[in-house]
């Protein structure tokens, strides 16, 4: 946004521990997930998470394009994270940029860690994430949408992959930063958890944290992921409920 400068730093944390939108430090933004939103894809999901709107679709297992990426002993996971031009305050030029490519890579690798790829040699499982409205935490929202879409597509996986970012605002460790907190915060730590094993398959970090703070942040993130996991499962149950369109008869 053109006019926002350092002079406008908002009050990120009140003395009684409330954040800019009234949340407590360990509180998530509201999350709504709908599975099976696309008529074309093999699996799909739409996630509204705070002011983020993200859609994901899965195609496959299908033929690998380009062919040279094909692997004889497993499926390849091809993930593309993309932001719509109008999803951010300052219009984003459409097309490939380095940030999107990096995010696509780490999300694809997270899914490769939980999908039984060996069951589908010489195929590709294509995961597409479109960020339509962004407000910090889009890679986690995209990953959550894609994970529900993969389950909707019937891709066998170890588990769903809930994800969330933990950050540091006004010196305090806080769950699930929104845009103002992300812009003026001191650290950002996105992660994706395999609930069944308790292990992390996506982990990035930027900013400043002490060893103690990092430990605290990891614990907080894991707890956040476990809450998101419940929302993901509920979305799939709703999609395949008896009597639901596309669900059991």
């Amino acid at each position: 946004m053109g006019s926002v400068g350092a002079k406008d730093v908002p009050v990120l944390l009140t003395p009684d521990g409330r954040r800019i939108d009234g949340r407590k430090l360990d509180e998530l933004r509201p999350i709504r997930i709908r599975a099976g939103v696309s008529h074309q894809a093999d699996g799909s999901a739409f996630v509204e998470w705070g002011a983020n709107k993200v859609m994901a679709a899965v195609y496959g297992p299908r033929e690998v394009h380009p062919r040279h990426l094909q692997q004889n002993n497993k499926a390849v996971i091809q993930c593309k994270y993309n932001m719509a031009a109008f999803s951010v305050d300052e219009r984003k030029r459409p097309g490939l940029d380095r940030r999107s490519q990096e995010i696509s890579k780490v999300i694809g690798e997270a899914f490769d860690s939980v999908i039984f790829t060996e069951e589908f040699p010489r195929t590709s499982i294509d995961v597409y994430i479109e960020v339509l409205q962004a407000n910090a935490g889009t890679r986690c929202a995209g990953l959550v949408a894609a994970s529900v879409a993969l389950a909707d597509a019937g891709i066998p996986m170890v588990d769903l992959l809930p994800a969330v970012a933990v950050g540091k605002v006004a010196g305090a460790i806080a769950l699930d930063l929104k845009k103002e907190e992300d812009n003026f915060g001191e650290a950002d730590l996105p992660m994706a958890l395999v609930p069944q094993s308790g292990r992390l398959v996506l982990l990035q970090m930027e900013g400043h944290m002490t060893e103690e703070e990092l430990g605290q942040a990891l614990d907080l993130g894991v707890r956040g992921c476990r809450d998101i996991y419940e929302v993901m499962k509920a979305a799939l149950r709703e999609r395949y409920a008896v009597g639901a369109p596309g669900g059991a008869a």
Partner: protein
Amino acid sequence: MSGEVTAEILTSHILDLASSGKRLDGRTADEYRPISVEPGFVVTADGSALAHIGDTAVLSGIKLEPGKPFPDTPNAGVLTTNAELVPLSSPMFEPGPPQPGAIEVSRVVDRAIRAAETIDLTRLCVTPGEKSWVCYTDIHVLDHGGNLIDAALLAAVTALLHATVPAKRFGIAEADYALEVGHVPIECTFVRLGDTIVVDPTVDEERAGQGRLTVATDEAGRVVAMQKGLVGAFSPDDVKDVVRRAFRHGERMRAIARGTGR
């Protein structure tokens, strides 16, 4: 769900049905699928709308930013239209730079908006030769169930009708104001199935089609853009018939875009 190809047997079934005035989904030759628009779908845009025509979903977002006028039109703002047929929306689309199909959608939509004088570009000029607004219309296809052009323009004009010029944010005026919108063009697309010409084709009908024809009309009674696409041919009488039908559908869809009809 439609696949990457349409079976020969389905194509001949579609053509057989058309010969007796019927369609796979039970519509008549001159009937659209259900149409709806949702303005303001994306708050990060200066104007936005999600348009549905049957299974097809297209999101359009408007962004206005200060820029420089073109040297040959120092008193005019700049209008650009860009369509992304992202691979999320169809098994037929692949990642990478825009393919001819996406470029065609962008250009056909852009032509209708320009020719109908939807936006008076001189009103987008701030300082002649120095500063003017650049109005970006970005079109993002979310679900490709056929007939992208009509859904794309419907989303785009609805977004423009609900757009705000962020003049305060960029320090150009004291307050933001609504974008001025002139004529509202609507595109209607038809495909030939044997001797029948059907409106609002699905993906399978597009693949079975023997020529596609898009006609853009505005409320001033003008035809403002046309595009014949795909392999096939139309007689001048076919074209006249299609234009007549496009005016009628256009009137109804314009009311939907304005929020005054359904």
